[in-house]
């Protein structure tokens, strides 16, 4: 089923949870709704589930009015943030719930229900746990019971609200991969809500980045990461260095580093630039414009090293990432001076009030990429 969400608005006392949200969800796709808390992503999910309704706007399912259908008729499976398992029912009874509450004409026989529950228990790797109560399970096991319960009704669409939020880091990564495999196997349209950008980029086919009730950008993880549409997306996705550049004789520049270009042809005098930590060259040749920066500290984090750099002429702190094994190759040591220059940047011009203009985005790449 293709879902068309069109111009959804939802207001709660004192704040706009959804502000003119339009989105289409293709059959079989794995879509992430990514945003900070209060960005409206959970509200959007609840509207799809039939647990909340928009003040205005529409949702159509292959041309049919989806909002007119009550929750129980939407053929949706939902996994709640805290799983919402029925605490007084066993694992088996939890999974069978959606089948047992059906009217008797549509209800499978006892044997059939039992067989389906057994299949699901195997699928979520919980054989032998059927007689336990939710309180006797670990967080990861509860999450899989919640998933099996949602799948038992053979939904057309799976909704997951912060599915990994309450788990510890190790379990989280394992379950993430497992969920991805499950999705590829079932080819079920899946929408999940998360505030964790790493999770969204790793799992989803498409990511919708939300902020203040609006969708800032929708795209594949690559596009979201490499071509962020707004300053918010730049700052929310991954780590990023931010600084201002001013237009001069040779295009936009910041201190001794210059872009040698002005795509806006003099219409703006100032712009904000975003540069990812891995986009910084640490040993730029003398022929190229660069900053003199001091390497203040090296934070070694496993395979990656985070470098804390300081450009005194601009009073600017920068973070650069290099592979740990490159540290010795480049002879990097805390306290040394480096010639630092961005290889690429995303820039937004500032209007007269200092507001960045997303529509005028400029993705800049250094002309002759030379390995650092």
């Amino acid at each position, binding site marked *: 089923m293709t879902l068309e969400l069109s111009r959804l608005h939802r207001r709660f*006392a004192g704040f706009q949870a959804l502000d003119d949200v339009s989105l289409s969800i293709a059959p079989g796709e794995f879509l992430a709704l990514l945003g900070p808390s209060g960005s409206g992503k959970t509200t959007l999910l609840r509207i799809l*589930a039939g*647990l909340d309704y928009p003040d205005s706007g529409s949702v159509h399912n292959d041309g049919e009015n989806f909002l007119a259908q009550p929750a129980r008729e939407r053929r949706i499976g939902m996994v*709640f943030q805290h799983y*919402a398992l*029925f*605490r*007084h029912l066993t694992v088996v009874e939890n999974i069978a719930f*959606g089948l047992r*509450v059906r009217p008797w004409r549509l209800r499978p026989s006892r044997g059939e229900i039992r067989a389906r529950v057994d299949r699901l228990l195997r699928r979520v790797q919980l054989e032998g746990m059927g007689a336990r109560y939710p309180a006797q399970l670990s967080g990861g096991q509860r999450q899989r019971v919640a998933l099996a319960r949602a799948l038992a009704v053979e939904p057309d669409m799976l909704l997951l609200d912060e599915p990994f939020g309450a788990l510890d880091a190790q379990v989280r990564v394992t379950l993430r991969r497992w969920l991805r495999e499950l999705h590829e196997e079932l080819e079920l349209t899946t929408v999940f809500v998360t505030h964790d950008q790493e999770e969204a980029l790793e799992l989803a086919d498409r990511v919708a980045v939300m902020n203040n009730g609006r969708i800032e950008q929708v795209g594949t993880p690559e596009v979201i990461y490499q071509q962020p549409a707004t300053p918010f997306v730049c700052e929310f996705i991954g780590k990023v260095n931010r600084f201002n550049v001013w237009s001069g004789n040779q295009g936009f520049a910041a201190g001794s580093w210059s872009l040698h270009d002005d795509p806006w042809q003099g219409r703006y005098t100032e712009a904000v630039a975003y540069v990812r930590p891995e986009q910084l060259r640490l040993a730029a040749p003398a022929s190229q414009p660069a900053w003199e920066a001091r390497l203040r500290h090296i934070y070694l984090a496993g395979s990656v090293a985070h470098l804390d750099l300081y450009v005194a002429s601009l009073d600017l702190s920068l973070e650069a990432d290099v592979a740990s094994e490159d540290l010795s190759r480049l002879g990097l040591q805390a306290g040394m001076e480096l010639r630092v220059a961005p290889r690429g940047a995303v820039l937004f011009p500032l209007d007269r009030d200092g507001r960045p203009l997303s529509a005028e985005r400029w993705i800049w790449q250094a002309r002759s990429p030379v390995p650092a």
Partner: protein
Amino acid sequence: MSAVMRSRTVAWPRRLVHVVLIALALVFLVLFLLLPLATVFVEAFRQGVAPYLEAIKQPEALSAIKLTLLVAVIAVPLNLVFGVAAAWAITRFEFPGKALLGAFIDLPFSVSPVVSGLVYVLLFGAQGWFGPWLDDHGIKIIFAVPGLVLATIFVTLPFVARELIPLMQAQGSEEEEAARVLGASGWQMFFRVTLPNIRWALLYGVLLCNARAMGEFGAVSVVSGHIRGLTTTMPLEVEMRYNEYEYVGAFAIASLLALLALLTLALKSLLEWRYGDEIAAHAPGGH
């Protein structure tokens, strides 16, 4: 080593404080609770078992027992339904006046029972607002059974709701929402998810509600009219017999009420011990 020694010297006066406090509490308990309770039974059986049974078997006593049970059988289920509905509304919906409803549920606890009774007299009594109309249609509320039931409902209204609201607030509505998305109808959701989650708290609330319904004196006294054999409940019968110097009779019926109280206390303790985590920790207002 020296630290242990020092802590011992400190511990002595402290332990003395413990002993004194515990002794004080026990003396208080015996003096003001156990002694009066024992008196009830001692006085009831002062002339032996036969007069005790005789006193209970009197028609007025039997009718008082029947009336008390009748009032409780009507008032308690009504307050059960109201309590669940009110708790549901307060914990599951957003609506204007919600805080006000929450405050009003507590009203019977903060108003003197006598005032609660008087309110009904002013509404339905012969000189009351609806008095003449009721009189014209031959409906009797005050000085009759309906008045007793109304006054009892009013006085016992908060028990079930007060017990359920904190629990339902703590449990949240996620499980109910999960049931809805899984295809449950409203009733299925209530009976398969909500009710099992609140059953012990509900039973606890009903127990307290029932104890109060059977033991209520003040409000019931105002609307009863004290017509023997017709509108006297057990607490009223106790008072009337006592005033007529019929001590054995008064204490015999009082002993039944005391037994009911002890039974309620035992069940309540059992529930608290067994399902303490599913019952809101606070006990609602006094009897």
